């Protein structure tokens, strides 16, 4: 089979998988619930976008997602700290707040992301040192071949 036909078929398959992953998954995200509160009242939300604790209250805490959605969460704030990422499962209420089922600080998350940059840089460097892209043939070739 022609290489480019194979690439196009695989790319079409991957597009289908990406679309099914986005449209067919059963998880509710916060921005979806906030956009249609009546529809999502009482639904559990556990797919948050890197939620960070903004403020701690006696009866809960405020979070803000990386894409900017802030919301009040009611629940036990014991062990939580402002400024930390939080792992959260919560029930959405149409009045515009969440009731936490499970909340815990994602320990060392910021270090994890920072440290993960190094292997990406190292592997990228090793790849570029080992292979070169031949634009005429549109393929990677080993530099030492």
């Amino acid at each position: 089979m022609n290489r480019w036909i194979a690439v196009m078929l695989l790319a079409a398959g991957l597009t289908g998988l990406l679309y099914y992953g986005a449209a067919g998954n059963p998880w509710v995200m916060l921005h979806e619930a906030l956009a249609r509160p009546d529809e999502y009242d009482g639904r559990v939300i556990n797919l948050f976008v890197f939620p960070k604790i903004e403020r701690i209250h006696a009866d809960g805490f405020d979070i803000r997602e990386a894409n900017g959605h802030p919301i009040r969460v009611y629940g036990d704030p014991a062990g939580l700290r402002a400024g930390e990422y939080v792992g959260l499962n919560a029930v959405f209420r149409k009045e515009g707040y969440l009731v936490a089922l499970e909340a815990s600080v994602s320990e060392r998350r910021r270090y994890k992301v920072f440290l993960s940059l190094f292997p990406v840089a190292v592997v990228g460097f090793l790849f570029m040192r080992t292979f070169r892209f031949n634009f005429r043939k549109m393929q990677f070739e080993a530099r030492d071949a």
Partner: protein
Amino acid sequence: MPDLITHVAAAHLIRRPFERSGRDAENRRYRVLFYLGTILPDVTSRAVNIAFPSSMKWTLALHTPAGALVLIGILALLFEPGMRKRAFGNLTAGAFLHFLLDTFQTSSTPVFFWLFPFSWADCGLNWVDPGDLIPWIPVWLAGIGFLELVLYLRRRRESASHPVEKPPLESGSGQRKSRPA
């Protein structure tokens, strides 16, 4: 996900002892692809999510075995014909090592859809908090250093027991012979 240092260190520690000696260039080439495979699921999903936070649902498929296999199929076709099968094999092995390690970690978010697209079951075992692995990074790096030392000493011992024989010097060596026209 465990941090990517843990992923790449695991890839190195698992692969290096099984590389065949005497094929340095080949080993180096496919080792890089194995490493690339082991970071690929996070680079194509988590890194994209950090850069574009609203993309989370769109990248779910890229952090699954099915999505990674299709993506790796495309990547392997971008290599020269003689390398494609081994590129596919090494990238796939690296990616599946990534998924294997991810399976053991805890997550409040469902992210381990190993049966996708046939099921949305979360296959995570919730055994290890990825944050708890960070203090172990120096241990992984020391392990890599120790392994490389052992491999270096083994190579030296092998080359000492099987020295490469040099051709005997001809009389009048040092003078360049002129090539016949």
